[in-house]
């Protein structure tokens, strides 16, 4: 019995997530460009915020009395960009990956020391997990790296599902997604058209279905992580879920969507758009001072992910219907 469990664990760790090196390398480039588009520059404003607003959670910045000076944030952002460029070109990919992950976590530690925390840890975590995966394009390819990333994704999603489960999202007396949409509609300066339409027309049973779907998706990811095939199916649904969140609430989970690409044959996506990647990176650098650029880039990433998922589903339906 124990032997069979060990065999299963070994199979999951060392075989299940065996991806071609060409796909890993393509994902590496995609990831580096996404890192620049979503995150550069980040939290340069922090140094000018009064220290009285500094209120850190337990973590890397707990020992500090206030935000660091501007030159620290500029240096961290500079290093982050350097590691992104190195990663894109595959120069010493393990060191570049770890450097990217560390600098992003340090920058985020400062950014999240004023009270608001975005739950984007999966993005820097992906760099750590894949550092030795062979995503430089050179052998050996290590499937366990991707397996750990899948596990991290599953655990992260489960921690999002747990408070929802404990808080009664599955109760028929509450409409949690509707509440969330309404809260954004009330409290945000603008509401996406999707949110306005949903609040105006969606019946309560549809809102309740969304409550269940959100919890099942988040809680199910950890189970799906045990098979690449299951995980891919779950991620297709997740891409549509993030698309829906963007269209109704206006939140772009681009960091998640970018990481999901690791589990798909990314070379097929990147190859036709190979010329677009450097263009996107250069555009991100050129427009990074435009205050809405990062939001635009994030929304674009989520929209593209959603469109690809939709295309895949339509293709699947067409194939199924064509079968005799």
């Amino acid at each position: 019995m124990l032997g069979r469990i060990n065999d299963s664990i070994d199979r999951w760790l060392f075989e299940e997530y065996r991806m071609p090196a060409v796909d890993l390398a393509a994902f590496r480039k995609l990831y580096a460009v996404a890192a620049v588009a979503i995150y550069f520059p980040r939290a340069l404003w922090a140094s000018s915020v009064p220290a009285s607003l500094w209120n850190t959670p337990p973590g890397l910045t707990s020992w500090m009395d206030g935000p660091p000076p501007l030159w620290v944030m500029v240096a961290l952002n500079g290093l982050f960009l350097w590691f992104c460029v190195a990663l894109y070109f595959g120069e010493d990919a393990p060191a570049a990956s770890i450097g990217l992950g560390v600098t992003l976590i340090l920058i985020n530690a400062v950014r999240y020391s004023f009270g608001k925390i975005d739950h984007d840890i999966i993005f820097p975590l992906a760099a750590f997990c894949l550092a030795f995966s062979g995503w430089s394009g050179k052998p050996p390819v290590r499937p366990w790296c991707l397996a750990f990333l899948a596990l991290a994704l599953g655990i992260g999603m489960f921690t999002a599902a747990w408070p929802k489960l404990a808080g009664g999202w599955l109760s028929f007396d509450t409409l949690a997604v509707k509440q969330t949409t309404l809260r954004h509609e009330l409290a945000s300066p603008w509401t996406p058209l999707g949110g306005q339409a949903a609040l105006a027309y969606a019946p309560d049973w549809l809102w309740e279905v969304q409550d269940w779907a959100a919890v099942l998706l988040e809680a199910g990811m950890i189970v799906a992580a045990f098979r690449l095939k299951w995980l891919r199916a779950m991620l297709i649904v997740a891409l549509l879920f993030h698309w829906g969140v963007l269209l109704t609430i206006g939140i772009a989970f681009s960091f998640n969507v970018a990481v999901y690409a690791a589990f798909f044959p990314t070379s097929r996506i990147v190859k036709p758009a190979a010329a677009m990647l450097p263009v996107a990176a250069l555009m991100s650098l050129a427009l990074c001072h435009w205050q809405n650029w990062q939001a635009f880039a994030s929304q674009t990433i989520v929209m593209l992910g959603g469109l690809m998922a939709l295309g895949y589903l339509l293709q699947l339906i067409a194939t199924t219907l064509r079968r005799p």
Partner: protein
Amino acid sequence: MTERRLVRWVLFSVPVVCALQWAVVRKVGEPYPAVIMPSFAGDATAELTLLKPTLVFTRGGNEIRTASAYQLFDGQDMGVQYTLVNHGLHWRRKLDDEARDWLWAKSVAIEPSADGAILRWTREYHSSEKQPVCLGELTIR
């Protein structure tokens, strides 16, 4: 130690690390409020559990004492816009926009309860809407 053995050990340490993190967070208290039950039952009421009550924000003689709200200059446009974050409940408003009541809040009150305290605040939804709307309700434990 072979690579495979090391990887197995790392895998087996994952539940231990998760348990430790959970224990530490429980011990020191969550730094920010955990959303326990966002619910909607006909009005705009949200319930949150706050483990570390903290003061907040004053401006122009107005003060809002929520249990855990923070002013945060948001992103790169800090001179124009701020976000008052209450872990899920946040308002954005241009600083030069004085047309509405500050943060639209019409009244803010903390009432004692069996668990600790309940904070409620109301506001008018839009200028066309006359009835104040209960914007939020926080259970503070």
